[in-house]
């Protein structure tokens, strides 16, 4: 039991270190973006937010996707560690989505002249955000660990199914949100330097993801440990 705690502590340190590294990287990306990347003609400096917004958006969708896949795995293996990972990934995804949902409007104000628009793509993204808020609410409302794991796994899978709906929504509905310029059948359609900076930034966000998930996972271990020691058998 106590070696659980030591493992948790080491994981927490490792995660912390990676996260720190990632944050430094983020700073690096902006140094790169501001000094070594051409400024987009029509949008000017506003477009620089691109290098957070897009990786954050992708990061969010990826986190949620991984949560969904882990959820599916859990239902087959009933392995508590997988559940813990899914929960961690979901929470980190929420953080990324929050970044996306703030950078988006900040970008939108100068470009679209409005903070928000009830555009399907935007709204469905918002909904995904809500689904995972609900995911969290459900988890905190359930006390039996098995039940908590199974139920949140089901939500995770259902949300995973909704992600493609979101990605496709941009094609299905009229929307003011830019069509994919990178992830599109014909391949990327933007200057190579922008692409380079974007890819660096994506790398940074991946690092951030790993760091945060590791930390959150460690906390998960600690929590379960606390629970397991809370009360002995009776009668």
């Amino acid at each position, binding site marked *: 039991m106590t070696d659980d705690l030591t493992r948790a502590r080491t994981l927490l340190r490792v995660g912390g270190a990676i996260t720190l590294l990632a944050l430094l990287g983020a700073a690096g990306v902006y140094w790169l973006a501001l000094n070594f990347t051409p400024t987009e003609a029509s949008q000017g400096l506003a477009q620089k937010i691109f290098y957070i917004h897009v990786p954050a958006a992708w990061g969010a969708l990826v986190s949620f996707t991984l949560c969904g896949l882990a959820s599916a795995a859990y239902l087959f293996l009933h392995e508590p560690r997988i559940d813990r990972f899914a929960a961690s990934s979901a929470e980190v995804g929420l953080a990324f989505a929050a970044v996306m949902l703030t950078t988006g409007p900040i970008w939108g104000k100068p470009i679209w002249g409005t903070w928000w628009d009830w555009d399907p793509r935007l709204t*469905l993204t918002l*909904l995904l955000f*809500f*689904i995972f808020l609900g995911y969290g609410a*459900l988890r905190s409302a*359930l006390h039996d660990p098995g039940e908590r794991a*199974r139920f949140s796994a*089901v*939500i995770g899978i259902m949300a995973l*199914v909704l992600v493609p709906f979101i990605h496709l929504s941009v094609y299905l509905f009229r929307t003011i949100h830019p069509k994919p310029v990178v992830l599109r059948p014909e391949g990327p359609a933007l200057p190579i330097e922008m692409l380079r900076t974007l890819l660096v930034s994506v790398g940074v966000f991946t690092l951030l993801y790993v760091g945060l998930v590791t930390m959150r996972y460690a906390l998960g271990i600690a929590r379960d440990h606390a629970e397991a020691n809370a009360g002995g058998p009776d009668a």
Partner: protein
Amino acid sequence: MGEFFRVALAVAAKDLRLELRTRATILSAVIFAALVLVVFNFSRDPTAVAAIDLAPGVLWVTVAFASVVALNRAFTVEREHAALDGLRLAPASRGALFVGKALANLAFVLLIEAVTVPLAVLFFELPVATAGWGLPLILFLSSIGFVAVGTLLSAMAVKTRFGELMLPVLLLPFLVPPLIASAGATSRLLAGRPLSEVVGWLRFLTVYDLVFVTLGLLLFGAVIDE
């Protein structure tokens, strides 16, 4: 396969019979729907908004929330005296149990719609004639999706303290996509456009239904069994 449907029908028939006895679900749902329509009718400033513009949205929101009210009850009947354990003991596939519960819920939702739509037509003087068969079709397609997701989620919500609130929290995000499609299609139809123009929406609804009914079949076991 015959067994699958025997069980599914048994479960659905049981729920319908219970509902006939108590009327609890339908009544609260219908009352709610009526209230909502009344509110909209009176809170609308006729000079500002034409009823026809408001109608599709209102209709769909009403149906959605009334369905949530109904779905909230779906598994409380299984909670008393641990009746759900009775279902879980059955040698039947979990998919069959899911279909059974879902069929009953579908019946409730359709019934709610059967009450709501005429009311809406009354309040908003909708030109339903122009919409023709499109409207029922949309209603039917979207109801399937509603119910598939709702049945799955209400089975979980009922296990939480105050699940009556947890259900809408989990369910509403999943209801929005079909809601967009239905509301969009409805307003076009009411504007007198031909059915052919909303085929895209209908296809969207059908895909959604297929996806989530399948998910329900696959995941229901994970919800009710340990």
